[in-house]
């Protein structure tokens, strides 16, 4: 099993700690997406920019489904790995065969028979007593010889059963590796499908926005999500960045100083982002609190980087990285180092 595959699954499972997905959950997400606007492809022919809100709504549903399925597929594969990990275990060392017991029994039996011959039919009472004990020995050794022969057969059967088991184990292991390769391909494709759907809805939306409405639209419905100009739009829906995000109270993922809490808010208007972060970290000394604002234009990239300025004037950058699930956002920030101040942090936040 390659380390890379374990790595992908491990990362997926670790992130799943935030958002474990059941089969029913992703099926429900699929239904919700499919029912969101079943006639969208027909409507786009004559619709104007007003339809963009609907497209965004459907795109969000598609993304939820794609994320949920992606996480579910990863979880299933991780579970299978856990259940079948035993196939990789080599059997423990067995006892070395060929015990010398049979040889010893043979030697002792020969010696006893010799003594019986020596004692012969001597009528002496003492000799007769010794002879009867020799007979007892002889009987015990005879019984042992038979038992040891049977025991050898049983040991051979156990050894043969062990070999059959190892053959079956190796066959199962090879098949598991083959099926695991296909499953990992499915995991990768699940993620790519999500991206493809996001691209598709963006293209629909671009086409609708780029054309005059086919008929006058009396009122514009409030858009589900404001959109920047197409040229600067990220490949993922803006909902993956904007909104209120927090560090989970339990089992939060982070690197570097451990957050006690993190509150992040991101707004968007016409392709321009602005936001603020307020956090307290568990540090042994110095100021545990950091507060900064950031702003900048969204770029056509998955990860968004914005310049920031802290409340005490330090500058730096913050990177927003959409997580494996739609409700996860990783943040990575650095500021100019100041004595006693937090100047970097990395954590996975969950949507509030």
């Amino acid at each position, binding site marked *: 099993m390659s380390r890379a595959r*374990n790595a992908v699954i491990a990362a997926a499972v670790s992130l799943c700690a935030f958002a474990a997905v059941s089969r029913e959950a992703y099926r429900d997400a699929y239904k919700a997406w499919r029912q969101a606007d079943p006639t969208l492809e027909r409507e*786009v022919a004559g619709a104007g920019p007003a339809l963009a809100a609907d497209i965004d709504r459907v795109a969000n549903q598609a993304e939820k489904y794609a994320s949920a399925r992606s996480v579910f597929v990863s979880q299933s594969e991780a579970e299978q790995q856990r259940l079948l990990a035993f196939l990789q275990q080599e059997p423990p060392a067995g006892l070395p065969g060929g015990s010398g017991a049979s040889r010893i029994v043979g030697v002792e039996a020969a010696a006893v028979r010799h003594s019986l011959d020596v004692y012969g039919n001597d009528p002496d009472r003492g000799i007769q007593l010794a002879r009867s004990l020799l007979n007892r020995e002889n009987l015990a050794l005879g019984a042992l010889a038979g038992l040891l022969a049977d025991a050898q057969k049983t040991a051979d059967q156990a050894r043969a059963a062990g070999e059959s088991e190892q053959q079956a184990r190796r066959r199962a292991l090879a098949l598991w590796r083959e099926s695991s390769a296909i499953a990992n391909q499915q995991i990768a494709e699940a993620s790519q499908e999500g991206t*493809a759907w996001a691209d598709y809805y963006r293209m629909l939306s671009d086409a609708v926005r780029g054309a005059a409405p086919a008929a006058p639209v009396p009122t514009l419905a409030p858009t589900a999500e404001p959109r920047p100009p197409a040229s600067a739009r990220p490949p993922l829906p803006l909902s993956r960045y904007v909104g209120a995000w927090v560090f989970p109270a339990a089992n939060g993922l982070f690197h570097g100083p451990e957050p006690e809490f993190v509150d992040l808010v991101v707004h968007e208007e016409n392709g321009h982002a602005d936001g603020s972060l307020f956090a307290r970290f568990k540090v042994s000394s110095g100021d545990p609190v950091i507060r900064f604002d950031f702003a900048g234009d969204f770029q056509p990239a998955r990860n968004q980087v914005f310049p920031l300025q802290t409340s005490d004037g330090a500058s730096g950058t913050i990177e927003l990285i959409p997580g494996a699930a739609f409700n996860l956002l990783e943040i990575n920030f650095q500021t100019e180092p100041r004595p006693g101040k937090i100047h970097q942090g990395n954590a996975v936040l969950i949507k509030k």
Partner: protein
Amino acid sequence: MRKLIVILLAGFAWNLKAPAQEANPAPGLAERAAKAAAQWETLATGLDAKIQRMLPCDPRLTAAIEEVSRASQARLAAMNQYLQAAAARARQDTETARLALAAEQASARDLETDRAEAEQERIAIEAQLSDLSDSVKRRPELEEARAKLHSIRDRVAARAADLQSLAEKRSLLAAALSDLVEARQARQRALEAQLNALALETSRWGDYYAARLARARVECEITNPAGTSRRKR
């Protein structure tokens, strides 16, 4: 974040490897049994030569027989411990394989459902494609989206095919696991038979050494009723 992922991976890899650490629940028992057997063999093989030149009432004679008898008991006890642990491990192994087989059989059914769902998804996309193709006639700028949807349709169709092939592999895997369960049950039965045979063997060795010791005492009494040591034969 790469560091974070590394930390996560390390933790997860440890979890994945955890069952492997239970590979041998009784490490050292096989070695101990082999060592006890070797000790007994050495003593038993050398016993006749050792006592050959001793007088029948020489206390070292019965001590030598008792020493071999004790070594025999130690060998059989160590062997019993090893086989008990091996049989317990075999029972556990059988259960692990049985659970994996049950999960695999359930997973095979789920895969069939997944494949059917992928097929339904493809059909739904075909319907979208049909609608969008009509829309492209009225609004040519939708062509790029249509091409994208077309590629998604192909991707989902490929997923259905992959799921079919995965289901076939998993079906073979379930059959192999079923063979493994049977093989493990056979090993478990063989180990339990070894344990039963060992119990009988232990009893017979006990009989033999008891008779051997009794004969040594009788030979002493015969040759030296008044307490004077004389050589046997």
